[in-house]
């Protein structure tokens, strides 16, 4: 492996094989998500779906978008927008709950 490639892997944290491994894990989680539609998970249904969704989200953001390896400022900017969006959703739900 050339120095150039090694430097690249260090800067961006992962090799191509690593990306493929992440994609396979994501595909497996997606298959598991779809299975919840056909198999009765009982009370675990909703928490399991939410956890799988969050895990997939974090894996794509961390590894494919390189937030895990990049400057923390980018993480702050992105997650601030995300938390604000979740806040807006909660406020909207609460508003409809109280005034409808």
């Amino acid at each position: 492996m050339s120095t150039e490639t090694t430097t690249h892997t260090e800067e961006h944290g992962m090799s191509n094989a690593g990306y493929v491994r992440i994609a396979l894990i994501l595909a497996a989680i997606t298959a598991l998500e779809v299975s919840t539609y056909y198999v009765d998970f009982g009370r675990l249904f909703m928490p399991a779906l939410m956890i799988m969704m969050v895990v997939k989200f974090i894996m794509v953001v961390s590894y494919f978008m390189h937030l895990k390896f990049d400057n923390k400022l980018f993480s702050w900017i992105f997650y601030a927008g995300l938390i604000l969006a979740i806040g807006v959703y909660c406020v909207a739900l609460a508003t409809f709950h109280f005034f409808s």
Partner: protein
Amino acid sequence: MSADHAVASHDTHTTSTGLSNVKLGMWLFLGSECLLFGGLISTYMLYRGRVGTGPTPMQVFDIPFTSVSSFVLLMSSLTMVLGVSAAHKGDDRNTYLWVAVTALLGATFVGGQVYEFTAFYNEGMGFTTSLFTSSFYVLTGFHGVHVTVGIIMLMSTLGIMKRSKVPGSKSETIEMLGLYWHFVDIVWIIIFTLIYLIPV
């Protein structure tokens, strides 16, 4: 592919933050996009039970078909990141290849969405049929438009790269496209779970 090019692709201009302004701008844009989709998803979640006399989500959704579409979009994220990786190495041939495959997978996803919308419409699920249908079409339609814009950007960039007219760093341009594309993918991860898999 030359070593000079690979080195040049990692060059960044000195900025007050020490970070690339382009990248900072892209993350700010993606942060604001979270708010846009947050609002649309909230609206859908509020109205998904308001079906009126129209069909309910569970009557019209085709989970196997949408699952395949989701898988296609997920794999396009892999091809995109491989394209970004190739661009950082200065490997033009693989950059073209992976970016083109990403665009193709994206087009497959959009084609599937057009088919799905047509099937829904034929089953009596028009845009104004109920609050559920309106909020569903607006949310998934906005996402579809984002994917379409992504495909146009990917293909345009390929064309510009072929003529060697990419302003600034080529690898950074591909990386920014990658960030946008992955964002579109993570939005779909949320939509697929909240809209398709959770019954009303």
